[in-house]
């Protein structure tokens, strides 16, 4: 028999109605938050506080070098791995962490939001021997104030399958020029992130100078539209957008992708596994003719850090020659510490990753946060929110 006193749908509606009322109440009486408190530089590193909580990229905080750190300093490390720069910003805003390994597309947001404090580099002895082209850069130094310790860097390379892609490409046009890219329709690999719009901007900077692109992360309406429409034209030719390195490695290994943008890590993994892959050779400065985008990571300290002494000890530890070499080899990136090159297990490591080749890095545009205010005083650049919306419409 059917019970007539139970009406699940009506009950569900009642609950939903209640939630709506509750929500409108909350939405109406909320107030905007205001937490722009910029911390002061530390003057002296004292005794460790016994604990340290970090946000990092996967592979940056591993037992191989945190165990000895804990033994040496007594700072017990707890680490939260973040998948994206956006996630890092979000986590740092919670104020529950001491530090973060921020990429350039997060650092400006963190500084603007008052989430991180200036770093007194004189308290980090290993800072002295960090590669000089990583110091005082727009993604780690703001208004002449240092906000972090460089950790390591990498470039986004053009990689191709030598059996299928002939002749060897020397320009990004092989995947971005609609006519040339059509030759590899369905086999092109592109990075799945709004920041990939900057790759199109780097290409347009060289091929359509009339657009007047200076910095691929500072795009006005017209420049931005040009980059976005270039990527919309690229869309039908793309076989796969990758976001996890493992996904791209399997696509190149299985023959689903034959040409595309990659990190040094995937390239060396595939090459090491004997796959027929190549990236721009030394004769072309290791990069396609337009240059490339890339990333440079910086350890930053929270403005609300509960364990500032431990954080300073960590920042010095992670760029000490031996540890920086370990991290760089583990992760597959160029170390920031110049003395790390003597400590790597693979003696060719720094050469492979161009760590000590400033000419290579001069042509790399490190990720930055796209901001509306791009330095011309009129705030007419597209901000990161616009980039995210555009990215959704590019992928469709």
């Amino acid at each position, binding site marked *: 028999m059917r019970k007539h006193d139970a009406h699940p*749908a009506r009950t569900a509606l009642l609950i939903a109605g209640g939630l709506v009322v509750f929500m409108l109440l909350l*939405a109406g009486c*909320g107030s*905007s938050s205001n937490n722009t408190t910029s911390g002061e530089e530390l003057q002296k590193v004292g005794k460790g506080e016994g604990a340290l909580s970090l946000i990092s990229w996967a592979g940056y905080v591993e037992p191989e070098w945190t165990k000895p750190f804990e033994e040496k300093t007594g700072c017990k490390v707890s680490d939260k791995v973040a998948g994206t720069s956006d996630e890092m910003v979000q986590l740092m805003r919670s104020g529950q962490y001491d530090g973060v390994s921020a990429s350039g597309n997060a650092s400006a947001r963190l500084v603007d939001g008052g989430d991180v404090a200036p770093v007194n580099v004189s308290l980090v002895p290993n800072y002295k021997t960090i590669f000089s082209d990583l110091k005082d850069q727009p993604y780690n130094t703001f208004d002449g104030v240092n906000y972090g310790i460089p950790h390591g860097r990498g470039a986004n390379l053009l990689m191709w399958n030598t059996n299928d892609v002939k002749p060897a490409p020397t320009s990004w046009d092989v995947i971005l020029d609609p006519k040339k890219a059509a030759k590899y329709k*369905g086999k092109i690999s592109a990075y799945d992130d709004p920041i990939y719009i900057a790759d199109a901007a780097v290409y347009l900077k060289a091929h359509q100078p009339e657009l007047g692109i200076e910095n691929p992360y500072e795009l006005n309406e017209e420049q931005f539209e040009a980059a976005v429409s270039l990527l919309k034209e690229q869309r039908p030719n793309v076989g796969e957008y990758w976001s996890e390195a493992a996904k791209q490695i399997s696509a190149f290994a299985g023959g689903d992708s034959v040409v595309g943008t990659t990190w040094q890590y995937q390239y060396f993994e595939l090459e090491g596994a004997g796959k027929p892959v190549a990236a721009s050779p030394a004769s072309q400065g290791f990069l396609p003719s337009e240059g490339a985008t890339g990333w440079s990571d910086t350890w930053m300290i929270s403005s609300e850090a509960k364990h500032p002494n431990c954080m300073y000890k960590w920042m010095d530890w992670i760029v000490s020659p031996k540890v920086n070499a370990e991290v760089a080899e583990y992760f597959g990136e160029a170390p920031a510490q110049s003395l790390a090159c003597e400590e790597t297990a693979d003696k060719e490591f720094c050469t492979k990753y161009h760590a000590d080749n400033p000419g290579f890095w001069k042509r790399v545009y490190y990720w930055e946060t796209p901001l509306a205010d791009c330095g011309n005083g009129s705030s007419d650049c597209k901000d990161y929110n616009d980039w995210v919306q555009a990215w959704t419409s590019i992928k469709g």
Partner: protein
Amino acid sequence: MATEAVVEGRSVGHRLAGLFHGRRRLQVGTLLAGPVGWLVIGYLGSLAVLLVAAFWSVDPLSGEVVRGLSFENFETLFNEPVYREIVWRTVRVAALVTLTDAILAFPIAFYMAKVASRRGKAILVVAVLLPLWSSYLVKVYAWRTMLSAGGVINWALAPFGLEGPGFGGTAVWLVMSYLWLPYMILPIYAGLERIPNSLISASEDLGASPFTTFRRVILPLSFPAVVAGSIFTFALTLGDYITPRLVSNDQFIGNVIFNNISNNLPFASALALVPIVVMIAYLMVARKLGAFEHI
């Protein structure tokens, strides 16, 4: 000292027991406080926060969340054709996966419930449950390997001059149908088990052909179970974003939520309301079809 403590501890226990003795409401209330608290605060509370956040907005200059009433997110959602396209794609695939699973699951469940021996039944139940023991990611990556250009599907089809679907919409449909099949088989199996064999015998005795017995007796009695199973497959497909990401370039609602969650939480919340609304509509239809009558 020691005896004193024991005596004191006892008296506290006794006093507590005395407090509860004969007070039925207090007993039940204390027992249910935990689970109900969890349901209301942890479960419905987080949903409420999600709904509230959908009406907030993000300050374009600082990127900070502005906690004030705004319909901006919903305007974007309705005015940008790309979001309509994504919602429609997600719902379409969810419906397709549900239909596929219903067609695949019914014969298997019927065999398990009515034909197989006791031993065969046990083996089949284990076989259906077995895939649930391995991680979701492992299964999707396994499909990725099988579907790739040099994968086993292309290899098997090559002698016939055919080619596999490769990565894309078809791959998403295949993988999702595989992933959620057990969630369809089990409710149908349970539903069919409940149909007394005597009804089927009676139908035969009265001269109905097997097909008529199926159409007039078995299907109507088991239909609520099919609808119950479809709620699982539909909801699971609607909320998934990892499968589309791994075997296609298609964006589902979940992918767009994921992209927006850290830089524009209010917009992500607004998007998250879409599957909730779709599911409420689906559940109301399911109720009309009698899926909840035996719950």
